[in-house]
């Protein structure tokens, strides 16, 4: 096994081009588990810790460009305002020690359906995209095209994740996750939800209940329709139990979970409906407050 330690991003991309089977490592919270348990022996390890720009983020007010290796701890501390859904999800990752090392880039690279970032990224909108860098250039992959299978993403062998571009929240966002305790939990299932009042859409993201993270498209469309037809974005009136119930059912129907050690498919479906109803209610209540205080 080789240990590659590029000092710059250009060197890292050159190394990945030369060693396409090299496994990138940053926080190590996934990669080292596989190494310690001998699950995976890559031909080479590509250490990204020296690439400081991967740990930086910037915002132009509309979009946050989040470096792939910005640790979850800093997302919670520094980005709860512009990226509230992702910050909530980040807070449920592992433990303080894990959040000091783990990052969204690692979640995307591993592409586990249980990764905590994914539901929040999907809910943040179709404008979310992953910057796939290589010696050939930069490719912007829309988040909806990024996850292609169980632990598989759409990166080419010579590509590395440089950053994720996420629209700044223009409405309330929530994240909910089921597990046996509040820390060190791999999600039994998870759900991300976001209201996007500017373009009159809503965002959803389902975690750990399908081969890939996925959005509940019909649930989004249903709610978008109801909010528009009834003028609820303007009035801020209550949604009513029927709408909330129907939304939960549609989210549940969008999942295709399996029975495994963490939970049964039935339990996951049930829990998703509950989380969908709750996160919608929380977000809508916050939105109503905003509307009223603005009025």
């Amino acid at each position, binding site marked *: 096994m080789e240990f590659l*330690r590029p000092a710059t991003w250009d060197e890292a991309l050159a190394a990945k081009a030369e060693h396409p089977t090299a496994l990138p490592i940053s926080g190590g919270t996934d*990669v080292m588990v596989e190494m310690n348990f001998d699950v995976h022996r890559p031909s080479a390890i590509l250490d990204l810790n020296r690439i400081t720009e991967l740990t930086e983020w910037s915002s132009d007010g509309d979009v946050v460009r989040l470096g792939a290796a910005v640790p979850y701890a800093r997302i919670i501390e520094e980005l709860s305002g512009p990226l509230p859904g992702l910050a909530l999800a980040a807070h449920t990752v592992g*433990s*303080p*020690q*894990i959040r000091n090392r783990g990052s969204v880039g690692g979640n995307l690279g591993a592409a586990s359906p249980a990764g905590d970032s994914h539901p929040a990224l999907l809910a943040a909108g179709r404008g979310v995209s992953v910057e796939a860098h290589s010696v050939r250039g930069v490719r912007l992959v829309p988040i909806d095209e990024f996850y292609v299978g169980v632990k598989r993403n759409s990166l080419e062998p010579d590509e590395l994740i440089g950053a994720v571009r996420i629209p700044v929240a223009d409405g309330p966002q929530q994240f909910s996750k089921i597990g046996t305790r509040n820390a060190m939990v791999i999600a039994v299932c998870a759900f991300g939800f976001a209201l996007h009042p500017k373009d009159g859409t809503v965002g959803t993201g389902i975690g750990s209940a399908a081969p890939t993270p996925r959005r509940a498209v019909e649930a989004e469309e249903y709610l978008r329709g109801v909010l528009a037809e009834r003028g609820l974005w303007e009035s801020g009136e209550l949604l009513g139990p029927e709408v909330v119930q129907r939304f939960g059912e549609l989210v549940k129907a969008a999942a295709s979970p399996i029975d495994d050690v963490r939970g049964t498919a039935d339990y996951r479906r049930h829990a998703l409906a509950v989380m969908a109803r709750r996160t919608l209610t929380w977000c809508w209540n916050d939105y109503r407050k905003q509307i009223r205080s603005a009025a």
Partner: protein
Amino acid sequence: MRVTFSANGKPVEADDVWEGESLLYVLRERVGLPGSKNACEQGECGSCTVYLDGVPVCSCLVAAGQVQGREVRTVEGLAGEDGELGLVQQAFVDAGAVQCGFCTPGLLVQTDALLAADPQPSDTDIREALSGNLCRCTGYEKIMDAVRLASARTCARGAEK
């Protein structure tokens, strides 16, 4: 490969390090610092917690090659040069927060980091900060007592200055 870094303020060097080896293994087996404990090897238990460039991390999840040229501080580094226990260590002894002791090194480093950031944490803050450190024998009450005691002593020390 060879890896050189700073451990508790002193330069250390390890040779013939396997590329997939963890920092924890290097500390325990190659540079004579067995304080950090190896329990789960997957970041679940926190027993191997060390400072890496001032940030507490699970050393079992850091690849040895990643610490080249960087600063590591282990539980051994919490004590004085003369072996006198540090404030957090003494509080754990005084509160009886140590039973088998296997989880203790990780708890000590994590508590040290907590009190450095927030000398007077609430119980909720303490539980949150220690949520990645598992203890399988005392239960957590004595550990909570120890952190509260360490917090009180840290604040008292601050007041004297």
